[in-house]
């Protein structure tokens, strides 16, 4: 389970990516943040951001709140 949820539903990219980029460094290494984002670009851009920033993209899930993306702080 994620340690924290960022609700970015209704936001257009790059806003969900900016939200995770703002929040993740404030949390301890190892923390998993779940980003709820219904903009289809998030499915591409959140994994791409993780790769560019050396953070871990845990995976995409589709739950009752729509598409969600789990990201773990690695450094």
């Amino acid at each position, binding site marked *: 389970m994620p340690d924290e949820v960022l609700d970015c539903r209704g936001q*257009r990219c*790059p806003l969900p*990516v*900016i939200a995770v*980029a*703002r929040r993740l460094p404030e949390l301890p290494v190892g923390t998993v943040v779940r980003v709820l984002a219904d903009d289809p670009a998030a499915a591409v*851009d959140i994994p*791409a951001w993780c790769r*560019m920033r050396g953070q871990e993209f845990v995976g995409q899930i589709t739950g009752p709140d729509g598409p969600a993306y789990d990201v773990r702080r690695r450094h």
Partner: protein
Amino acid sequence: MSATPVYLDAATATPLHPVARQALLAAFEDGWADPGKLYTQARRARQLLDAARAAAAEVLGVRPDELSFTPSGTMAAHAAVLGGLAGRRRAGRTLVHSAIEHSAVLHAAERHVADGGDAVSVPVDRLGRLDVDAWSAAVRAPGVAFAALISASHEVGTVQPVAEAAAACADAGVPLHVDAAQSVGRVPVPAGWSVLTASAHKWGGPAGVGLLVVRKGTRWESPYPADERESGRTPGALNLPAVVAAAASLRAVAADAAAEAARLAPLVDRIRARVAAEVPDVEVVGDPERRLPHLVTFSCLYVDGEALLHALDRRGFAVSSGSSCTSSTLRPSHVLEAMGVLSHGNVRVSLHRETSEADVERFLAELPGIVADLRAEAGVVGL
């Protein structure tokens, strides 16, 4: 103060070549008659059409009777795919295509699926290059009727392994369509295809002319109601002046293609290197080496693609973008998605014969400040 316009969107439409303009005006004078009729004016029109076909066929290294002109590159691609599937319906109903085809091919595939057929999309790697092993396995599967591969990505410039893909198709006995819209008139296209399409306004001809080449012996059947024009491949009266201009400009650009590629490729390399070095948090996408000489794409982290396009436009730069906010469907480019690269803040720059080194230098000088301003406005500096 408005900046001098710098047009950097040749991959969408290239400015009309002077030879095209000249041929267009001349052909308006004596190319208006129906080339199918039996009187003097028609014979003149027929001569112009035959000469245009011969010229275009010579550039592509095909027989004139294999080449038809169509009302656009999009219609040529639709006809290539749907006609290739129709001609092979007894072999099966599966279309194999890459994940990064032009939307014209993907929309034809959607139509085929809606009509009860199948379509198999073959992935590309992070650089936008076709997975040849997956492609070879896909075309060998039972029931495959036809395959479609873009010669080089229109969005990121990565040149596709057409020769390898064509060899796999030949082994499997599956005809291959190559959408060569970004290559014809710029770089050679490897042999081995059965159907090839191109679009005149991508090489400096007028809009409204496409090329559809069907090699002898290919089982291809027109998807349209019967019409005797253009060997029965594409219906309706052609825009003959535009066809004449397209062929004349194709011959002109093909003659200069090697020199133009040698001039533009270093400018593209310079853009790739300088953007990566001088704009922070940018992802330059596409294959660094096996690429088109005139096209380069990059994505700027945390920047809104539409805002970036507008900011560049205000400084006089016309570019394209694959970001979702710039598309009518609000979906990111399927090409960037298939590659798994950043899709927001995306810019495609494509050069042409009128692009000067000074144009590129001005773009490179202004871009870092434009991106920095947008990031400052959005409050994302230092993220």
